[in-house]
């Protein structure tokens, strides 16, 4: 796959930590998995050891399939940290899924100019492999399925 963003020079996630290893197992398989309660079926995020709604410990990581949309964003022109300054300007965003509203996934938006971005914009996930263990989910504007 094409390298969209160079994650290798910045901090990388701990994808093996037991409380969220399933999330990163999902991204390796091309899925966004969010924690969902098996008892009351409600999603929550970030992960909590008990369901915040019914307080059940019976939680699974469930692959969301609904439309991701842009909840909010910023175009970072200058990051004070040298680790990120080398990337040049980039878009950071919070992305929301229709089936799990009010939960936000921090990510980057690619293939989009900051002038064209808007809140509510439909997006699609791109899974960028960093190494054997780490695959970072990032997003781009959803391509029109009916376009030629």
């Amino acid at each position, binding site marked *: 796959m094409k390298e969209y963003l160079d*994650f290798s020079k*910045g*901090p*990388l*996630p*701990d*994808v093996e*930590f037991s409380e*969220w290893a399933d999330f990163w197992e999902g991204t390796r398989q091309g899925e966004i998995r969010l924690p969902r309660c098996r008892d009351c079926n409600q999603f*929550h*995020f*970030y*992960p*909590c050891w008990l369901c*915040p709604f019914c307080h059940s410990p019976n939680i699974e990581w469930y692959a969301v399939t609904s439309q991701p949309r842009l*909840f*909010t*964003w*910023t*175009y*970072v*022109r*200058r*990051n*004070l*940290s*040298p*680790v*990120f300054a080398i*990337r040049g300007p*980039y878009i*950071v*965003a*919070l992305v929301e899924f229709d089936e799990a509203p*009010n*939960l*936000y*996934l*921090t*990510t*980057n938006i690619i293939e989009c100019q*900051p002038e064209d971005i808007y*809140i509510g914009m439909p997006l699609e996930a791109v899974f960028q492999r960093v190494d054997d263990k780490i695959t*970072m989910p*990032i997003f781009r504007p959803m391509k029109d399925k009916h376009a030629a």
Partner: protein
Amino acid sequence: MESLRDKIAIVGIGETEYSFKLNRGARELITEAIYKALDDAKISPKDIDGVVTESTWVQQFLNHPELALGLGINTRYAGGIGSTGNGNVASFHLAAKAIAAGQADTVLTYFTNGYGSQQDIPKTASGARREDITRGIKDSFEAPYGSNGPRIYFAQVANRYMYEYGLTKEQFSRQLGAIAINNRRNAVLNGRGVEKEPLTYEDYLNSRMIADPLRLFDFCRWNDGACAWIVTSAERAKGFPHAPVYVTGMGSSWTPEARGDYWTQGGKNYLYKPHMAVALDRALQMAGISRGDLDFAQIYDAYTIMVLIFLESLGFCKKGEGGAFVESGAISLEGSLPIDTHGGNLSHSYINMASHIVEAVRQLRGDAGACQIKDAEYGMIEGGSSWEEFVTILRRA
């Protein structure tokens, strides 16, 4: 249980010079602020028998046992509460309880954030600079994307705010600019802070974009400086050189929050934190006053957008109406609710509400110079946070 209203009073304040480059370590700055507070109260370290600080930050520079060792304080009571800005505001809550319980008579609080020119903390094993370090979830779910701190979190908050309340970029810039200009004006009048030159709207608008839609002057800058203050029981406070400033109202409230959620989750409360008004209501109830009785409010203002969110969340105006409120001039020294009377984090100094507290005491002593609010009787200080809120209301003697 008996109310803690007016049970303790502030009898000493101390602060260092504030500067972008003092080249002095955090411990040295804290020590200077403490000695100035002791001198202000005309007491010596042996008169202190309690230490209360916020619980997560300042002790990495100078912890309570080391403070006691260095200054020769025989500490009967030592405790920590809250985190950074909120913890500074909350220091009065813990000190009041300790004094009311007879665990201490005279309690010292100190703070610096150590973000200045000479950092006293060894680098991590990986050599990472401190501002790169976030913990746990933020490390794994945010930092890899270059979302590595509150500047970016609040730039996202600002874009969502503009969207939710249907503001144009021009309207939103005017609102945020009004806050930056107001706090700069106060700082110039105060004269002790880091910013000495007035700011015009053109200056604001022309400052470079850092993370859209926030510009350079939407953010405070890191600087050197430290503050300290001393409280004692209301009975003892009458024997000190300055008129006591009473701690007359205290309130706190919090919202359950996922680990790692600092302005990147929040669900339906992403832009509005209802627990903040609850904390203020509790403090007002203890003080026996209402919002309209407050002569000034020290609002956490590390970034301009925070002021809009906090004014609305504290119930000083309705959701989405913070901008009209600040543009009306209500927040100016002559307005109905002067805020950040010394210039705040934005233009006076970023010491996480500690310099706001020192300034609040000056206002209520009638010693605030060109920033003095006429007949100031009640002032509130709040800590600004995504999930916990502490409010303290002070009253002049």
